[in-house]
């Protein structure tokens, strides 16, 4: 854990709906407790961090603004940047160019992770990104390399190459994958780790399995629950709920074992929070739990 939070950039990814945002926020709280100047980054028009952890610095990366910032920096002239920014030709090409918004997004994240961000503003020790789901995250991480190879000689190429090197440098960039203890998220987690290695030569630092049901009932207790004949409805429903929970917990632990066998990165778990909406106190608890287990 010390080594993960000592990097400059940590990307939190995983299949959709597995709790990436929660884990990214919990990680931010740990970093802050350790005295790091930390910034949380969101992409894709999300603004959840500022609600979840208002005391931490957060940035929601807007590709349009990131593009303007980049232009400004590249041309070293506000006038030229506005000539280009106002040009229909340029708008037309960049709005349509596939992959460009991924590139400027990861470029902005990269800039935030630098000790002296080009965009100005305060410097941070660590940027934690609530990244898109695995497939899209992989595309985002690949985009600097793609552009570096397309635009070999120009400034776009040089810039993209710099970002690519930073992402692939283990001392600078870390990757944390979130999962749920279920068949499909487990497959996706294992597959993502493989693609990241094969396509970019990057490794996953940690896997966090969220919302693991507790193994609450012993085998003997399950036997008793199965044989009980409840005569009244609420009692019957309660017994049914307990058995159903037990089956779910058992299936989840089997998936967890499968993940541990299939994944190279260390796997840690977080307990299921039985609250409909995750409140601030739950987030604190999860953060403390995560710090202990990482």
């Amino acid at each position: 854990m010390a080594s993960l939070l000592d990097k400059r950039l940590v990307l939190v990814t995983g299949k959709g709906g597995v709790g990436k945002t929660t884990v990214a926020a919990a990680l931010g709280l740990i970093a802050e407790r350790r005295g790091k100047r930390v910034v949380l980054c969101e992409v894709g028009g999300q603004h959840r961090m500022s609600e979840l952890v208002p005391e931490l610095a957060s940035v929601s990366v807007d590709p349009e603004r990131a593009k303007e910032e980049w232009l400004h920096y590249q041309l070293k002239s506000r006038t030229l940047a506005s000539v280009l920014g106002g040009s229909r030709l340029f708008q037309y090409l960049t709005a349509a160019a596939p992959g460009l918004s991924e590139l400027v997004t990861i470029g902005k994240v990269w800039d935030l992770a630098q000790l002296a961000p080009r965009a100005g503003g305060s410097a941070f020790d660590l940027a934690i990104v609530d990244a898109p789901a695995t497939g899209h995250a992989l595309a985002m991480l690949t985009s600097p390399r793609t552009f570096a190879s397309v635009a070999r000689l120009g400034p776009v190429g040089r810039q993209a190459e710099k970002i690519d090197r930073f992402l692939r440098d283990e001392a600078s960039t870390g990757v944390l994958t979130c999962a749920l203890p279920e068949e499909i998220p487990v497959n996706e987690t294992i597959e993502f780790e493989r693609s990241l290695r094969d396509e970019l030569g990057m490794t996953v630092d940690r896997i966090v399995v969220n919302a693991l049901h507790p193994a609450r009932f012993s085998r003997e207790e399950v036997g008793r629950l199965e044989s009980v004949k409840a005569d009244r409805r609420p009692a019957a429903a309660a017994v049914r709920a307990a058995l159903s929970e037990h089956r779910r917990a058992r299936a989840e632990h089997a998936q967890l074992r499968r993940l541990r066998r299939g994944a190279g990165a260390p796997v840690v778990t977080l307990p299921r929070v039985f609250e409909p909406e995750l409140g601030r106190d739950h987030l604190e608890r999860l953060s403390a739990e995560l710090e202990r287990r990482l």
Partner: protein
Amino acid sequence: MIADWLERKEVCICAGSGGVGKTTTSAAIALGMAARGKKVAVLTIDPAKRLANSLGLRELGNEERLVKADVEGELWAMMLDPKRTFDELVEWHAPDERTRDAVLSNRIYQELSNAVAGSQEYMAMEKLHELHQEGHYDLLVLDTPPTRNALDFLDAPKKLAAFIDSRTLQLFTGPGMLGLKVLGRGSGMALSVMKRATGIDLLEDLSGFFSSFGDRADGFRERAERVNALLADSRSAFVLVTSPRADAVEEAAWFHHRLLDAGLPFAGVVANRVHPPEPRGNPAADLERLLGDDALARKVMRTFEEERRLAAQDRKNLANLRRRLGRKPMIEVPHLDDDVHDLDGLRRMDEYLFDRTRA
């Protein structure tokens, strides 16, 4: 129920935010319709091979494969290879072999079709359109990609077509870049600044890419328009997939709103993983008596209370969504004990998706 939603429909598009069971729902709808005698193909573009998992298949290709499902109709499945679809499209558009090879070997094209996000959404739409044109199936079910913004894929055809569009093309292909006239005065200046910002070889590659397309680039735009027309057609149906979680419900409500705005045919909502309501009353005393073990009874009570809380919250969130859907139907699929990842799991979903007594 789903079969009513899809009556006389030829295309079913399953959309929703990540992690709500879109892929599984698409597969279950396809299997259910095949079980009812239809010839169905389900398409996924998910790079994580989730549909393959749902169907218990190791690998899908760019060709439809018949799934051994023992149904009255036929169930076919395919996982799109966006790169392959893109190449096929170029082959289809290219006037001759030389042009085809020029495009396929252009570096811009290779990077664009290989790695770049966004092209897979476009290619999914292409393939959907192509299969619909061929007319081999009664119904096509499309599982949309897991974009953070559930509607991104709708804009994909337009965006990519705009990129390859002939108007852009003229800028680069006309001798001495005469095409700049199209954009009026000031573009020469913009172009020279752009060279400074991007590097000259990027522009040259772009120019090469566009000129190898020739007039055929028009075809891309026309096709994108036809794809959009297909989505808006009355033979298509959008099914919104959600979970009862508050954030997913928000996304679904917003998505519904945008579908209506865009005039797209919305059929209904499938809410997955719903905790069913639990009966009222306090069973604590009953449990102690029945189990004869206070500690065990307390553990059971605790579990039951947790389930009740989750069920109550699901009710509340779904009631909120129902209000915002107006008269459109919603089907609830309960939280099943095991994760659905094979044909048996899909059949268990069937009894809810195709239940005559509901929605």
